């Protein structure tokens, strides 16, 4: 085993901890600014100023603004996934209801930061983003939770066995994402979004139910 692969022991070298501190401050400050001014409306310079670090040190930590957004989205999802991991095993009811609960948790969580979430979707099409950093759509944990729910549904005879689960997952994910357009067109709140999503899941469930 090489020395580099050894787990770090003892105090973290100061340079390393300083870099991590900068990283956390940049992410926290970007989170706040994206949420208030949107992704396009926020510059790296403002993020740096708000975080109290130099523009140069932002760029030694992140390759682009898109990468910062990816990091913001990931870091803020941790508590959401922790909550889902806690709740999902105890859910009762049919497959559709379990999916409904899961997305209700999502909307409750996101409603506090709708602007940020929409930045997230808009930025998926941003030109300055390297493909690897495309933020929206790379949510493997969420897809995994939907898959587990559908597989349980198959075991319980509620979901057809001859259906392509990935296609159902994609349909549910797109229904979830596009429901946010109601925030733009109708200024919908979390309750309204949950209501629409419940019905959409019902329609999709008609499609995956055994005949």
């Amino acid at each position, binding site marked *: 085993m090489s020395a580099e692969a050894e787990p770090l022991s003892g105090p973290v070298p100061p340079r390393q901890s300083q870099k991590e501190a900068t990283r956390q401050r940049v992410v926290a400050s970007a989170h706040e600014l994206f949420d208030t001014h949107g992704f396009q409306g926020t510059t790296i310079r403002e993020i740096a100023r708000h975080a109290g670090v130099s523009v140069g040190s932002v760029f030694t930590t992140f390759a682009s603004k898109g990468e910062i957004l990816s990091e913001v989205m990931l870091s803020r999802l941790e508590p959401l996934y922790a909550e889902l991991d806690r709740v999902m095993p105890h859910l009762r009811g049919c497959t559709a209801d379990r999916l409904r609960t899961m997305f209700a948790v999502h909307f409750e969580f996101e409603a506090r930061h709708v602007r940020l979430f929409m930045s997230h*979707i808009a930025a998926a*099409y*941003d030109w300055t983003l390297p493909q690897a950093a495309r933020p929206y759509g790379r949510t493997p944990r969420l897809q995994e939770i939907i898959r587990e729910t559908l597989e349980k549904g198959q075991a319980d005879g509620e979901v057809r066995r001859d259906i*392509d689960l990935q296609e159902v997952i994609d*349909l549910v994910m*797109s229904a979830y994402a*596009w429901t946010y357009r109601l925030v733009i067109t109708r200024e919908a709140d979390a309750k309204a979004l949950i209501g629409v999503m419940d019905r959409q899941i019902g*329609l999709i469930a008609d499609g995956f139910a055994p005949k």
Partner: protein
Amino acid sequence: MKHISPNQVAVDTPTRAPTRRALAKQQTRLKVLAAARRLFSEQGYEGATIRDIAAAAGMSTGAVFANFTDKSDLFREIMHDDMEALTAAMRDAAARGRNVEDALLKIFMAGYTFYKTRLQLARAGFSVSWDKDGGPTLRGMSSSAAFQDLFTEQLTAAVDRGELSQESEAKLRSQMLFDTYLSNFPQAIFEGWSLDALQARARDQIRILLAGARRG
């Protein structure tokens, strides 16, 4: 309705050849639109500036502003033109559908085929449509509404033909079909999916979304 003969029209409103000035103005507009279309496709909505667009069209920024109020006006006009052309193509395609599922699939495919050569422009469109400021204007356009209506019309016609049952969720179902049509664009834009791959996926999606409205 009162019948008007061509002759009568000619008498009432003498057809006047457009003035040279009007023709020049029209040409300027077209030149600006072509340049803008190219730059939006190359640099995205945010990346393309009026200054660059003017330079690419070989004119001053003043000349651009004489024809369009701002960049969003320019972008809206391009999207509007495309959506009108696309809606017409989709309508033709749907008319050739053998049943509701086939008609919907043909609508999806007319869209993916249309945008196959302008994926980057579609990408710019999505970026603007999810923007808090750009979104409402783009989504509120009449051509955008006409586009959505196409899906509703297909479902209504299918109910009339007895292919689908009368239901309360028709509006939501057509909205979901429309969203699903849009949601496949990232695969086309970023992952280079072929039209065949998109068609196979779209067919399955349409089946799932129609299942609840099937008769029997």
